[in-house]
C-alpha cells in the first residue's frame, strides 16, 4: 500500500515526529511504500541541519534523513510554514534576502500542493500531530 504521512509538530516538542518515524519504519519493513512525508506547521523544524540534540538521546533529523536515504523517501517541507518559521534552503535564502539557510539536504521545500497531491496518490493518509 502507498502511504502519505503528514507531520504537524516539531521534533521533541511533541511525540508526533517520533511516532511518524516509527510508523514509517514499520510500514517500509512490511514492504509498503511511502509516497511522501509532508512536514507542516512546526513540523518544518524537523528539517533544520543545525540541531544538536543531546548525545544520549535520539537525533530525529538524522533518523529521518537516514530512513529517507535508505528508502529514497520524498520528504517535503511546506514553503509557507517554513517561511513563517525561518527554515530555508539556498533558494529561499536568496529569494527572501536572508544571510543564511539551514535546511538539511534530505528535505526539500515545496508548496502545499504537494500535500494534496500526496492525498490523491496515496491509499492512506496518516496524520501525526497534537
Amino acid at each position: 500500500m502507498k502511504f502519505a504521512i503528514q507531520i504537524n509538530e516539531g521534533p521533541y516538542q511533541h511525540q508526533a515526529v517520533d511516532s511518524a518515524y516509527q510508523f514509517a519504519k514499520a510500514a517500509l519493513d512490511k514492504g509498503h511504500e511511502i509516497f511522501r512525508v509532508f512536514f507542516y506547521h512546526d513540523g518544518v523544524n524537523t528539517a533544520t541541519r543545525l540541531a544538536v540534540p543531546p548525545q544520549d538521546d535520539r537525533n530525529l533529523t538524522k533518523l529521518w534523513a537516514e530512513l529517507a536515504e535508505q528508502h529514497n523517501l520524498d520528504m517535503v517541507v511546506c514553503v509557507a510554514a517554513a517561511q513563517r518559521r525561518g527554515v530555508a534552503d539556498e533558494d529561499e535564502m536568496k529569494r527572501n534576502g536572508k544571510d543564511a539557510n539551514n535546511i538539511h539536504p534530505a528535505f526539500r521545500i515545496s508548496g502545499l500542493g504537494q500535500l494534496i497531491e500526496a492525498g490523491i496518490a496515496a491509499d492512506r493518509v496518516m496524520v501525526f500531530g497534537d
Partner: protein
Amino acid sequence: MATLHTVNKSPFEKNSLATCLSHLQSGYAVLLFEDGVYGALRGTNIAGRVEDAAKSGRVYVLGEDFKARGLDEGKMIEGINVVDYAGFVDLATDCDRVQSWL
C-alpha cells in the same frame, strides 16, 4: 467501509478521546497511542465509555507507548488489544480511511 480512529492525547488533557467515541460508526477500530494510551486504564472517568467501545468494536493500544509510560497491562480495560508499530500499520491498511483525533 471501516475507519481507523487514532487518539494520541490523554483524555484528561483534551476531549479528543471523548469526541472520537462520539463519532464511531459500525466496523470501527480505535487505536490509542502516545498519551492516548491513558484512555486504556481501568477505573477512570472515561473507562466506561472505552469499555463499551471495546465491546461494540475493536479498541487497540500501542504497546510501546503503554510501556514507555510505565503502565501495567494488568490495569488495562478488558477487551482492549495490544499492538506494536507493525500492528498499527496493519490497522491502517485493513481499514478504508484513518481519522486522527489530535
